[in-house]
Structure formats: C-alpha cells, structure tokens
C-alpha cells in the first residue's frame, strides 16, 4: 500500500500541471521559484479538494462549533511549550512567561486545554515557532516556497517546521500511533473551522496563488518582528506619482 503513495502524489502533481496558470513569471524578485510553486500549489489544492475538505466538511456537519473550538483549544494548548521555548530562544522573557502561564492555567483550570481560560483573563497568545526564531536571529527567509501538503513556506521556515516537529514534546512521551492520528484530527478540525473563510478567499481572489503568497509573506514578516514592519517601499505603496487627479 505504502509504495503507491509516492506514485499517486506524483500523478496528482503532473495532473495538476494542466490547471497551473501558465504565462510569464509575475514577480521574479519576490517569487523566483514561481513555476514550481504554482504546481505544488495546484497539487495542494487538489489534495484539499478531494481529501481534506470533504473530511472536514463531514466533521463540521457532525460537530457543533463549541466542540470545534474546544478541540482547537486543546491542540493550541499542547503547542504552547514550543512557543515558550522559542520565546526564550528569542530573548523574550516576558512573552515566555506568558506562554508558561497560559499552559499552566489552561491545562489545569482549563480542563486539559479544553477551555482557553488564559485568553479569558487577558493573557496574550504568542504562537512563536522556530522559523520565527531563526528570523529574529537574523536569518533571512529566502525565496517563497510552497511545500506539498504544508503549503506556503520558505527555506528558513521549512527548517523551522522540521525543528518544531522534532521538538514537539508529546512525540517523546506518547507513541507515534497516538500522535499521528491526533495531529491529523487537529488539521481536520482546523480546516472545518475555516471552511467558509477559505471558500470565500478562493472565490473572491483573482489569483488565489498570488493572494496566498502575498498574505503569507506579509503576515510572516510581521510575526517575526512582532510588529508592523518599517515599510521601506512605503513610498512606492502609498505615494507613487500621480499625474492627474
């Protein structure tokens, strides 16, 4: 069974090439790997359409919103130690302390993470990861890179993903046949929560690939800095010359 999977993925990828938008590269500076990225994006969209979205829709039908949020809270809580560690690595003791507090509070009073008590009393959430840590340490992201299944990323953030996966504390405490379905469930649940938003985005986008790319790059930059970036090309964005009124 397992041997068929790479073949299937390869076929899907080649099949989706036909759907990939052809034409001159749109932004060689920002996205030098655009050709490859578009193909991977098309593959991801296909996988989503045929596998993830239907399962998520089924779950959405069965599970009321309260349950979906509860599940999201539990998994969110389980990732807090990673955010905690990365805040420390980034030299942000206050944020690390907040993450620690969130984890403690939500795990205990919040019934193993089911209830986000920490947010209820105003402790901010941080969601730091190793990709952001590398960014804080001065590592540039590198070109935009769409990963199969995982979606928008960059060379730096891919390394971050790998490190986060390796450092996920529960993988060492709980057998893999528990963590893998659990994480799959997390993904399905997340997808169910954002069913409408993603449909809306797809429908209203003129070029969904570009929409995702730009949104992801900009958001990522902000998350690394923890604040709005100083727009170097702000003049270009907001003040390009106008001849007429």
């Amino acid at each position, binding site marked *: 069974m397992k041997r068929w999977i790479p073949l299937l993925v390869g076929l899907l990828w080649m099949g989706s090439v036909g759907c990939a938008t052809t*034409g*001159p590269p*749109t*932004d060689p500076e920002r996205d030098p790997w655009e050709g490859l990225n578009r193909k991977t994006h098309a593959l991801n969209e296909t996988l989503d359409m045929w596998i993830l979205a239907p399962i998520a829709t089924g779950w959405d039908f069965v599970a009321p919103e309260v349950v979906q949020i509860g599940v*999201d809270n539990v*998994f*969110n809580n389980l*990732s807090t130690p*990673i*955010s905690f560690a990365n805040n420390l690595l980034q030299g942000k003791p206050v944020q690390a302390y907040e993450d620690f507090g969130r984890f403690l509070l939500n795990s205990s009073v919040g019934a193993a993470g089911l209830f986000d008590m920490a*947010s209820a009393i105003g402790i*901010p*959430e941080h*969601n730091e*990861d190793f990709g952001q840590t590398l960014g804080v340490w001065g590592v540039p992201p590198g070109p935009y890179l769409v990963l199969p299944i*995982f*979606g*928008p990323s960059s060379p730096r*953030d891919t390394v971050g*993903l790998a490190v986060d996966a390796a450092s996920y504390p529960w993988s060492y405490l709980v057998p893999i046949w528990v963590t893998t379905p659990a*994480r799959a469930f*997390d*993904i399905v649940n*997340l*997808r169910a*929560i*954002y069913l*409408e*938003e*993603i*449909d*809306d*985005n797809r*429908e*209203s*986008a*003129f*070029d969904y690939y*570009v*929409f*995702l*790319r*730009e*949104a*992801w790059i*900009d*958001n990522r*930059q*902000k*998350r690394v800095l923890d604040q*709005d970036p100083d727009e170097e090309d*702000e*003049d*270009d*964005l*907001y*003040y*390009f010359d*106008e*001849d007429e009124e």
Partner: protein
Amino acid sequence: MTMLRTQWGRVGAFMLAACLLLAGARALAAETARGVVEQTVDAVVAVLKQEDRSVDDRIGEIEQIVYARFDFRTMSKLVLARNWKKFSKDQQAEFIEAFKTYLSRSYGRRLNRYEQEKVEITGEREEKRGDVTILTKIAGGQFDGTEVNYRMRNKDGAWKVIDVVIEGVSLVSNYRSQFKTVVGKGGPEKLLKQLAEKNAAPPGEGDDS
C-alpha cells in the same frame, strides 16, 4: 501546527475584520482620524446588532456609511499602481466602481458571521506626509486578538481610509500583486472583465452553518 492555524486564521480574518470597520454618520472636517474610526465603528456595530432586520437590509445601510469613509479613487490608483496609466479614463472610472462593488460584496457576506465581536482602538501612528494609521484589535469571537490597522489620509478636510492592514497583510498590497498578474497577462480589459464576472456571480453561501 501553529503555523497552519495562524496562516488560515489571519488570512481568513482579512475579510471579516475589514467590515467591522468604518462608517461615518457625519463627516466633520475638524474630526481627528481616530475620532472618525471610533465613531464609525460604533455606528457599524450598532447596525450589525439589529438582528431583527434582514441581513441585506443591514448590509445596505453599512455600505452607505462605509462608502463615505473609504477613498476608493485613491485606493484604486494605489492598487493598480503603474498599471493605472494603462487604463483609459473611462476604464479608470469603470474600475473604481467595479472595485468598490467587489470589495463590498466580498466583505459584505462576512457580516453574516458577526458574533458580537468588539473592536477596540489600541493606538494611532503618524505616517509619512501626514497619513495616520489607527490601530485596532478585535475582541471576542473566532478572531479574538486580530490586529486591524486603518491607514487614513486627509483629503479636503475629511479623513478617509486608503488601506486596511490585517495582521500585517495590506489590502492594497495584496490586490496590487493579484491585479499585476491579471493585467500583465490580459491588459486592463481582462481585469475589468474578471471584476465584472465576480460582481455578477450570485452571492456565495451566506448563512452560517
């Protein structure tokens, strides 16, 4: 998988957050940018809360208030950037109207999912050449904690929105990139055609599940 979560969440919030925004019941020349945002957020939320009215009704009213507070002409120029000159005067006018309708429809459908969120104004920031960015945060609901910034420019004494930036993602910048692709491949006609098609399509799923 915090990266996945935030990616979807923030991108998705792009839409809903942008409509908990801007409505100026009265446009007073002496108002500050912050005052404008405060006033209009209150007005929009007040309309949203009137659950006895139909959604279309409420969206209609909110649209009216929002139209008065967005500078669509400037936004259109910023969004098209160097491509603005490729559009004839007629095409420019057509684009401004079509873009306005498009934004209204794209964000209008999100109003269905309003869940009593509050918008808190958290600060303001002076930008170059007199622009002001008002920083707000959404409190409550699915997008609790989302930062939404409104960049305002003073034109003829009135403060108007020229960009909405959600969690670092600028509306102007994002659409500029998308439109650059479309115009690059098919010229102004292609973009106008796509805009018209999207505006003509029946509204997507409106009701919450």
